[in-house]
């Protein structure tokens, strides 16, 4: 086979395709968000199914002596909802090419993310649910722990994009990275709302 290919023989007048920049980061983030949502939904589904099995046998849930408080989870919910608002602020700031505001909003989002993690860690210490107490206890910790991992991943993603923005990347004409991190952040907030209702509200 020679190196002559149909492509080499394209007539000069053939209109060539423009080399546009694809929005791969945004698409990739959407796909990752989809996969993360499926995995998390699976865990919550297993928890609810397992909980239903316990209730069907007439046993109490949570087990006697275990207190699942509501104050901290509510505070955590408000914290994350606020962080979604600051993330929207960051996105809007970049849309306006307003870098100072973007950095403030991204920094605030990161701070609220840290606050959420700290509150979760505190909640776990006061729940007094022994992992070995019941086969369902690891499920609760699996759901909460998975969400913490996702939150850390979202914060790392935001920190990376904020650093890039600090270095001069992204603008009103190139928002892909900021859109991507905002989408992932909103996904983690949405998943927490599911967790909050499934575990903390309905227990």
């Amino acid at each position, binding site marked *: 086979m020679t190196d002559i290919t149909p492509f080499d*023989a394209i007539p000069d007048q053939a*209109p060539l395709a423009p080399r546009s920049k694809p929005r*791969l980061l945004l698409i990739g983030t959407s796909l990752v968000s989809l996969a993360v949502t499926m995995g998390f939904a*699976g865990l919550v589904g297993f928890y609810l199914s397992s909980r239903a099995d316990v209730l069907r046998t007439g046993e109490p849930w949570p087990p006697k002596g275990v207190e699942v408080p509501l104050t901290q989870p509510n505070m955590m919910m408000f914290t994350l909802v606020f962080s979604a608002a600051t993330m929207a602020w960051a996105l809007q700031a970049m849309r306006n090419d307003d870098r100072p505001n973007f950095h403030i909003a991204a920094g605030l989002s990161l701070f609220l993310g840290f606050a959420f993690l700290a509150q979760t860690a505190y909640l776990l210490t006061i729940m007094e649910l022994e992992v070995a107490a019941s086969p369902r206890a*690891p499920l609760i910790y*699996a759901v909460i722990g998975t969400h913490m991992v996702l939150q850390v991943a979202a914060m790392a993603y935001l920190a990376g994009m904020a650093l890039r923005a600090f270095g001069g990347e992204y603008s009103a004409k190139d928002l892909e990275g900021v859109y991507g991190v905002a989408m992932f952040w909103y996904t983690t907030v949405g998943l927490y709302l599911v967790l909050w209702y499934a575990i903390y509200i309905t227990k």
Partner: protein
Amino acid sequence: MALTETRHDSTAGHAEGSPGGLSDSPLVTLDAYFGAGDHKVVGRLWLLGSVLFLLAGAVISLVAAAEHTDLGAFTISDDAAGFAQLWSLGRDLLIFGGLIPMFVALAIYVVPLQVGSFSLAFPRGAAAAFWTWLVGIILVIVSYAAGGGPGGWSTDHVVMWAAALGFVVLALLWAMVCIASTVLGARTAGMDLDRVPVASWGFLVFSLGGLFSLPLVVAQLVLAYLDVKHGFLPDETSRIPLVGVTDSVSLAPGLYWLGVPALAIAVEAIGVHTGRPVRFHRPVLALLGLLGVVAYGADMFTFASRGRQIAFDNGLLVAALIASVLPVLATLGLAGDSLRTGALRLRTPLVAGLLSGLLLLSGAAAALLGVIWPIVGFLNKNFDTDLSLDVSLDLAATTFHEGIFGLIVGAAVLGGIAGIHHWAHKIWGRSLDDRLGLTTSLAAAGGGLVWGVGGIIAGFLGQVRLPNVGETIPDGAEAMNGVSTAGVALLTLAALLLLANIGKAATGSGSANEPWQGLSLEWATPSPPPLSNFAALPVVRSATPLADPEFLIPASAVATDAATTASPTEHA
């Protein structure tokens, strides 16, 4: 370059201008493979690894099948838990070491070429996924060897198995993100989604199906990890049910997910090797999508209600099983138009593709036997009928599922063989040996069919799937267990022949002439393609872009080209 970037300026791992074989380029070094950013290098790595682990999985499955033939005394594994370990290792290697990575490999190599992209989306991510997968799958084997896996006696190594398999699945998920992102976001101008080549579309459906389904496997592995670590599954007997962790991708209809790329490759091969691209392009795309949605979608939403047991007594599951047959049948029917009107050349891609489609269809059709029992039960309960069956059709815990698994695995292996042979020249700059390929295809088809028939009949005879020591074998089932073992042996032989054939091409044997040419964009590149695949491309105007006026080959170029190829009539 960061994992999230998709530039095509990396030269690592690619010897520009070389034929791209594994041994004939002095620039190809180990360092270049570790730092590869070229999707073609990464695709070759995935491909080689997947075929190796496919062979390993087939060998272990063969040992497990041989153990199954004589239940009076387990000769290799000590007891039922040991048998579960052996059985589960074979399955893990076949699915997560062989079949899924094989389609990932083909997709990583071919999809950017087919959609006219200069690169794969996140190529470094795909490379990182490969190394993670490789380390993970090795750790899975190590954990089994040290007493881990379902039925394992060592708590630490059962935990290690759950973690390692979790990493394997995460790596596959990340590779699927790269593939789906490329199809969705990196297509060249004019290539709308309904103009995407059938194979790339199949890989897209496969990847999206994986992104929906595999996270559930990860979730189950997390739970398995915690349950074992915290003592809720204290001994090997209590750990046997962990084999169910991968049920969502190893039982029908979720299992048909593996058939989607196989069927897509079959259609692509039929189009090229009959010289007649499939006329009904959009309907074929829709049917492949439907197969993905019906097969996996329905299974996913019913999975939680199964309670980690195989049960057909679920209306949605029964409906999905019935509905899965239709898209397979319709796709083969539409592709049959090319077979009817085109020139039939019995080359490996065509033969393997056709056999793959037929095996997939037979697997989906055979699975319908499992829904007779719940349908009869439903009718008796709701319509005051008094239907009775002479034989037991409660197949839930029997080798019936092994039979369906064998048929679909056979179909998937054949799909892989078809794809590897079809694009071998693009991958290594050398064609694979076609005679050996035909032998491989027949071995794989025979293996899948015999494995399937043996398992299904043994299931009807009441042979349980995971037996205990000394368990009585139902009359006639022993012979059928032997038949299944012969099927697995044939499939093992096919994997061995495929590896040998690839080895020949990768080390420089085989014809350097381009053996055939299709009408999708990968055929507009030299073999193997250069680093950035294309310098520039005209706007695509149809699903067969090389037939577009902008891409037409001047007669002089065809003459020069055809002089060195097998047959000028085979060009588009």
